[in-house]
């Protein structure tokens, strides 16, 4: 698959908003300054960011929502992605690979990975678990029809 853009994980956007200085945040910052680079998030990332904004920030909330929608391409989670993330998650468990807080919301990383993989997006994440999923995926390539 060719690299058609970037998928940005929740933790990077949250760190970016908090102005935390990380390698991934700097990469995102650079990409935001380039108009023609496709940057994508999925509905879960969109939701995770918005739910992290406290009520005290209601004044900025709606403009944040609009900015996110217009800055990023919002990807729907489709049947292929669900099937692929389930496959990887099950393979991971079979190999005793577990993610941080996997039974809370850590498993969502599988969905994020499958979203990026489907469209050939490069993943931008601060999460070390993504590397584990990437290795799993390399062992079991996705045979897209």
């Amino acid at each position, binding site marked *: 698959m060719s690299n058609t853009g970037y998928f940005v994980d929740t933790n990077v956007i949250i760190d970016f908003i908090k102005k935390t200085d990380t390698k991934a945040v700097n990469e995102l910052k650079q990409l935001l300054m380039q108009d023609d680079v496709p940057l994508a998030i999925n509905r879960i990332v969109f939701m995770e960011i918005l739910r992290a904004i406290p009520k005290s920030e209601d004044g900025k909330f709606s403009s944040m929502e609009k900015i996110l929608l217009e800055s990023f391409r919002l990807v729907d989670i489709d049947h292929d992605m669900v099937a692929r993330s389930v496959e990887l998650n099950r393979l991971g468990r079979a190999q005793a690979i577990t993610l941080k807080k996997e039974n809370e*919301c850590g498993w969502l990383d599988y969905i994020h990975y499958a979203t990026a993989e489907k469209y050939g997006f490069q993943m931008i994440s601060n999460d070390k678990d993504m590397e584990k999923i990437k290795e799993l995926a390399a062992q079991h390539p996705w045979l897209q029809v």
Partner: protein
Amino acid sequence: MIHGYKATQVVSRLNFDIQLTPEKKLYCFIGENGVGKTVMLETMARSLLYMHTVFRTTRPEKKHSGTFFNEKINNAIKDYLLHLPASIEVNQQTIKPAGSGWGIVSLNTIQNYSVPLECDHPVIFIGAKERGYLSNLQSRQFHMLGDAFERWLQVFQKSYNSMYGESTDHGQIAEWFIQRIAINPNFVLDATVRLEETITVLEIMQELEPTLRLLQTDEQGNRRLSLAYHEGNLLFDGVPIEKLPTGFISIIRILQEIISAYGAWGGNGSHLNKIAGIVFIDEIEAHLHIKWQYKILSLLKEFFPNTTFYITTHSPLILSNLEHHEGYRLTRSKDDVTATPIDDIEGYFFTDLVNTYFEVNPITAPLSKQKQERQRVARKALLELQGTIEIAQKECVDE
């Protein structure tokens, strides 16, 4: 019913090899413009006419055999031509062998060709052309309801013309309703049966759109139709029929054409919808509101449980309501057209259907100039927003 259809050198020199899962009541075909969907439906329907008992001698075991030899019918359509492929195979039976050397037959000569498989079901073809439009009577006098042969002739001619891409309303639909609501039951013996045809159409329409008040039942159980004939025009709930929204007209035409044909092919009043007919509908979604597109197929299947439908569509909403192996994607390689079944369509999300079967993907499509500009402004705003808004740390995964 057709579950295997091979035809060579159809119009535009297309060859079809269409294999369908048997015993389905609905077959829906999708495919890009120019793949041959309409041509396939038209050719299939014309092949069924070529195989039909109507044009062959009367036999008691074949319900519709010999109809063509009624004098009125024969005089009217004996010289009609049927354009056929060079060869036809239906359900693995050779109907017209390769090398037969001819492609056109008049209806009058069909009886000279014996076929191993005959069709003895009503065949109805509903074309897409001008389906959203119809005309009223415009004050011309309507004809009295004809006899059984005249009624059959009228519906046959309509289907035949549609198989050739022609639209022939000219007030026929308005007249059909008026003929049935205006008859006096004291004079006409089968008046109730004919009125039931109208009621059946209105019932389905009301099921499709419950807010319509086309058919109302009072406390005594008497039904009242919201149809009226006024100064030469048919009114639907007070609105002249030709002024109704195009989606509404499109539905009326589909339902009226099925019911009128079933009535004319010998169906009986309130059981019209139980007839085992074969109905072809080209671009079923034409003019239909999204809400109706979503409901139309399940409603047709429910109301016409013994009908086999062959339809084409460009609508993912229509596709989303199909069941396993009711949907087929037509693809063309040079002049050869084949159909691939769509497996387990019930498991697909709407986005999947749009992406996979209509090849529309907003994620990978380039942005318009306006959207690029909005993206540029939004990204600038996001960069400026850094550090100015409070946000909680993501609770689950990171750190």
